[in-house]
C-alpha cells in the first residue's frame, strides 16, 4: 500500500470540452486525492457527467490535461485508463445482465490484471461488503434497481483502482437505501485505499459522505470547499435556485 503523501492525485487541469458549437466544459480544474471523498455537484447540465467521461477516457478533452500521479492520461482510451487505476460506475448501472453478479465483478478483476482465482475471491469479498453476498449466483439482469447500483459500485472497486468515480449512484433510492449507500461510500477511501469522486444530486448523501465538495455550474467550476461552506455559499445557492426540489436540498 502506497503512502497517500506520495500520490500526485487525479488531476484535471483547465479542461475544455466542446461538441461542435456547444461548450460543455469551459476550463475546469479538479483535483482528487487518494483517501478522500470529493463530491461533484451542480445543477442539471452543469457538465458533471462530461467531466467524469473526460477523467475516465470516454471523452477526449478539446484542450487541457488529465494526469494520474503525474502521468498524463490524455489519449488513453477507457480501457487503458481503467487499467491505469481509474474506475467508474455508470448512471445507468450497465451491468452485464446475462452474467451472474459474481461474474460481473470477476470480469473487472480480470480486466485489472488479476488471476481468475484472485478475481473471484475479491468479488466475493466485495459482494459481502455491500450486502449482496447471497445473490452472487443470480443473473445481474434479474435484480432490483437498488441492488444494481450497489453492484455497479462494487464492480468498479473490483478493479482495485486508485480512484473510483461514482456517477449518481443514489438516484431512485429511498431514504433508507440512501443512508446505507452513504455509509458504504464513506468507507471506501480507508477500506480500499482509493479516492472517490461522487457525483450526486441527492444532498443528503453528499453531505454525509463527502469531506469536500466541488460545485460545477454551466461548465465552469463555481466553488470548492467543505459541505458546510458550500451550503453557506451565496453563489452556490443561487445556481440551485429554480431547480426542482430534491430531497435534502441545500436551502
Amino acid at each position, binding site marked *: 500500500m502506497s503512502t497517500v503523501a506520495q500520490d500526485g492525485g487525479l488531476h484535471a487541469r483547465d479542461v475544455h470540452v466542446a461538441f461542435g458549437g456547444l461548450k460543455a466544459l469551459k476550463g475546469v480544474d479538479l483535483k482528487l486525492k487518494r483517501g478522500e471523498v470529493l463530491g461533484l455537484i451542480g445543477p442539471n447540465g452543469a457538465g458533471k457527467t462530461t467531466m467524469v467521461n473526460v477523467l*475516465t477516457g*470516454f471523452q477526449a478533452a478539446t484542450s487541457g490535461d488529465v494526469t494520474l500521479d503525474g502521468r498524463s492520461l490524455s489519449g488513453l*482510451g*477507457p*480501457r487503458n485508463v*481503467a*487499467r491505469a487505476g481509474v*474506475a*467508474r460506475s*455508470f448512471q445507468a448501472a*450497465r*451491468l*452485464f*445482465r*446475462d*452474467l*451472474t453478479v*459474481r*461474474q*460481473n465483478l*470477476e*470480469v*473487472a478483476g*480480470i*480486466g*485489472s*490484471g488479476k488471476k*481468475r482465482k484472485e478475481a473471484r475471491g475479491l468479488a466475493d469479498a466485495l459482494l459481502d461488503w455491500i450486502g449482496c453476498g447471497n445473490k452472487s*449466483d*443470480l*443473473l445481474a439482469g*434479474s435484480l432490483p434497481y437498488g441492488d444494481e447500483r450497489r453492484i455497479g459500485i462494487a*464492480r*468498479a472497486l*473490483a*478493479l482495485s483502482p486508485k480512484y473510483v468515480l461514482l456517477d449518481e449512484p443514489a438516484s431512485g433510492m429511498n431514504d433508507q437505501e440512501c443512508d446505507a449507500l452513504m455509509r458504504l461510500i464513506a468507507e471506501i477511501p480507508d477500506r480500499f485505499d482509493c479516492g472517490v469522486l461522487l457525483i450526486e444530486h441527492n444532498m443528503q448523501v453528499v453531505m454525509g459522505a463527502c469531506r469536500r465538495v466541488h460545485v460545477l455550474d454551466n461548465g465552469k467550476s463555481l466553488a470548492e470547499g467543505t459541505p458546510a461552506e458550500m451550503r453557506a455559499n451565496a453563489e452556490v445557492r443561487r445556481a440551485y435556485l429554480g431547480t426542482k426540489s430534491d430531497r435534502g436540498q441545500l436551502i
Partner: protein
Amino acid sequence: MMALRLLKQAWPILGLLLPLALIVFLADQFGSISVERSVTEGLIKIVTVVGLYIFIGNSGVVSFGHVAFMAIAAYATAWQTCCSALKPITMSGLPDFLRSHTYPVLPAGISAATLAAAAAFIVGLVLMRLSGIAASISTLAALFILNVVYSNWDKVTMGTASIVGLPTYVTPWVAFACAGLAMVIAYLFQISSWGLTLRATREDEVAARASGISVYWMRLAAFTLSGFVMGMAGVLHAHFLGTISVDTFFLGLTFITLTMLVVGGMKSLSGAVLGVVVISFVTDILRRMEAGMSFGGGEVALPAGSQEVVLAVVMLLVLIFRRDGLTKGREFIWPSLSRQTGSGDVT
C-alpha cells in the same frame, strides 16, 4: 466429492455428448446407410454451428462470412490429399510441394484447419477494429471476396468446377469425435477468462471497456478459434462427400447454419447443438415433402424451393417470439443447480 464437483462442471458438455454418442451408436449398429449418412451430416453441421457459436455466441457480433473458413480448409485438404494423377494438369497453379505430392489425411486435415485459423486471424486483425455492425457486414464482404477469388482462380481451385475424388474417411464415429472435440474446445473457451470477458463485451461494450477489457483482442481470439473449428468442419465436409466446389460454401450454407444457431439459442453451446438437431429434423421432413409423400389416395408434393421459404419463416418466428432461441441462452445444467445459474459455466 471431488469427482462429483468435476462431474457437475463437465455436465453441460456431457449432457450433450452422451445422447449424441448414443445416437451414433444406434445408427452405426442398426441404421441403414442412409441413416448413417444423415447422422454424419448432422454431426458435421454440429461442428459448423459450434464454430459459429464460438464467435457469434460469445461476442454478440454476427458473422455472415464464417463459411469462408470452411472453404479455405476444404480446398487446403483437397490440395494435399486428392487427385494425384490429375493435379498437375487441373491445378497447375499449385506450388510444387502440393502439386507433386500427396499427404496422409490426418496431417492434411490438421494443417488445413490450421490454415483456416491463420486466415481467420489475419482477417480478424482487420475486421475486429470495426464496430459490431460494420464488422458483420465486412464478414459478408469477406465471404464474397473468397467466392469471387476462388471461383476465378482456375489454375489453383479449378474455378467453379468441382474437385472430385477426395478420400472419404468420415464415418459417423469420426464425425462424432470431431464434434466432441469442437464442443470441448467451445466449452473450455467459454468457461475461461477470455470467454467470460468476451461475454461481458457482448452484454455491454461500454462497461466492459471501463472494466479494463480489450474488446479488440478478445474478439480476435474468439474469431481465430472459431476459424479453426470452421476449418475442421470444412475438412470433414470435404472428406465426407469426396467432392468440393466453391458454391457450396456460400449464402445457402451461411443461412442454414445461422438459422440453426438462432433457433437453438445463440448464447449457449447447448443451443448450437439443439438447433442443429431441430433444424436438421425440419429440413429432412421438408425434403421428403418436396420429393412427394403419399397421403390417402394421392401424392402430395411441396414445390421445390419451399424448404428455404419455410426455414426463413421459422427463423423469423423464433426471433420474434423467442429471441434467445429454444434454450433461452442457457446450458443444460445439473438439476440441483437449476436455479438461475449464469451463462457459460456451472459455479
